[in-house]
């Protein structure tokens, strides 16, 4: 007990311990985790539905089966109209801001916890890793659900616009017809949605977590939310 030995360096925690702590934390905070994850789900669902709706539109135009009741009347003969591009960019911004906001909230309300963990001997890197793991998991699962919801939404819209034709020309796989715009296809869009959601969640969470971890614990613990 009565150490007089010089102070050693704190050890790095094994990865498994970090993983275990982060899952425990997600599990007990389940209700709150769901709300944060829902933020990610909504953002990605919105983006994916707009994007895919557009993709479906193009695919059916390409097929020459386009009916007169197109969602966007201004849709050009071929390719994406400026309005569609604008809509996709808008939904991307909504998605980025929404996810960043929900992650920032989730980290800010845990500043005190971060300060406390540092009092108990946590290294800054451990704190960041904890949030990285938690948000990576939340980001991926939230975005996957969001992408599926978005796909469902786009399919329903497509059914309304194109009827059952939709399924004959459903743009499942990427395609790059010679005379038309390149199409990513539904599967790639879902994948991109998942990756984007995960990256946004991880950045949105670990950046504020890193800033909180750098604070002296006294300051982190003072923060009231």
């Amino acid at each position, binding site marked *: 007990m009565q150490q*007089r030995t010089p102070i050693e360096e*704190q050890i790095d*925690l094994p990865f498994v311990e970090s993983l275990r702590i982060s899952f425990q934390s997600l599990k*007990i905070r389940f209700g709150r985790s769901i709300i944060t994850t829902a933020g990610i789900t909504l953002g990605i669902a919105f983006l994916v539905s707009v994007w895919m709706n557009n993709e479906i539109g193009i695919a059916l135009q390409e097929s020459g089966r386009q009916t007169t009741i197109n969602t966007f009347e201004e849709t050009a003969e071929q390719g994406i109209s400026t309005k569609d591009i604008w809509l996709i960019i808008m939904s991307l911004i909504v998605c980025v801001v929404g996810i960043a906001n929900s992650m920032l909230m989730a980290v800010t309300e845990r500043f005190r916890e971060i300060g406390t963990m540092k009092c108990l001997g946590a290294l800054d890197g451990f704190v960041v890793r904890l949030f990285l793991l938690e948000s990576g998991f939340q980001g991926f699962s939230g975005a996957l659900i969001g992408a599926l919801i978005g796909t469902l939404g786009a399919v329903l819209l497509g059914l309304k616009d194109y009827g059952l034709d939709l399924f004959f020309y459903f743009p499942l796989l990427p395609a790059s017809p010679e005379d038309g715009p390149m199409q990513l296809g539904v599967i790639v869009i879902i994948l991109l949605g998942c990756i984007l959601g995960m990256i946004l969640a991880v950045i949105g969470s670990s950046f504020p977590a890193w800033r909180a971890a750098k604070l*002296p614990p006294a300051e982190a613990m003072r923060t009231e939310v």
Partner: protein
Amino acid sequence: MADIVVKTEDVVKEYRMGSNILRALDGINIEIERGEYISLMGPSGSGKSTLFNMIGALDRPTEGQVYIDGQNMSQLSQKQIAAFRCHRVGYIFQSYNLLHVRSAHGNVTLPMIFAGISEKDRNERAEKLLDMVGLGDRMYHLPDELSGGQRQRVAIARALANDPSIILADEPTANLDTITGREIIDLIKRLNLEQGVTVISATHDLKMLDVSDRIVDIRDGLVERIRNRDEIEIEVGEVGGEGH
């Protein structure tokens, strides 16, 4: 030869708020011996918590030095500071600061996880510590399911996890009723006597007076005076007469 555990040298702490500079500590010099029970007393805003943070390496002084076990704290690396907080000091706070996602047991094991202690050893030790603070039957409760006094007991067990040489307590009884507060003080005093832990506690609580070896009165960021136990006893009598 006195064995000095904590020594501060002209410690100054300034807080900057916009263009205002607030001097919370204005040159604090104290020496604390191993095994002492020290109370920091003073009116609200006098700088007790700020000094607590400096001694516990929870914040850095603007000027001056803090030595713990002869080691100058400003010369430690990040990893050494983390190890210092983990092994040498046990912190107890007014608002308990338990991690609400971890059970009592989980809170006590966390500093041992950070110290790299094996799962079997830390579980055993957590059970022993929780037993010692009287929570043997509540180990797996979440903090939200415990009373204030019970939470503070968990915090004390957690503070002891890695067998620290110093216990730092910032108003540990402020949120508790008189009787529960008394129990917490007795528990901390028992650790002080039985295990030789140095206790440094910021407090408003006059019940702390009669267990303290010395009382450091802080006022406006300065040490106003330091009273020894024998100088206090008369005053405790007075307090006892009117207070309880």
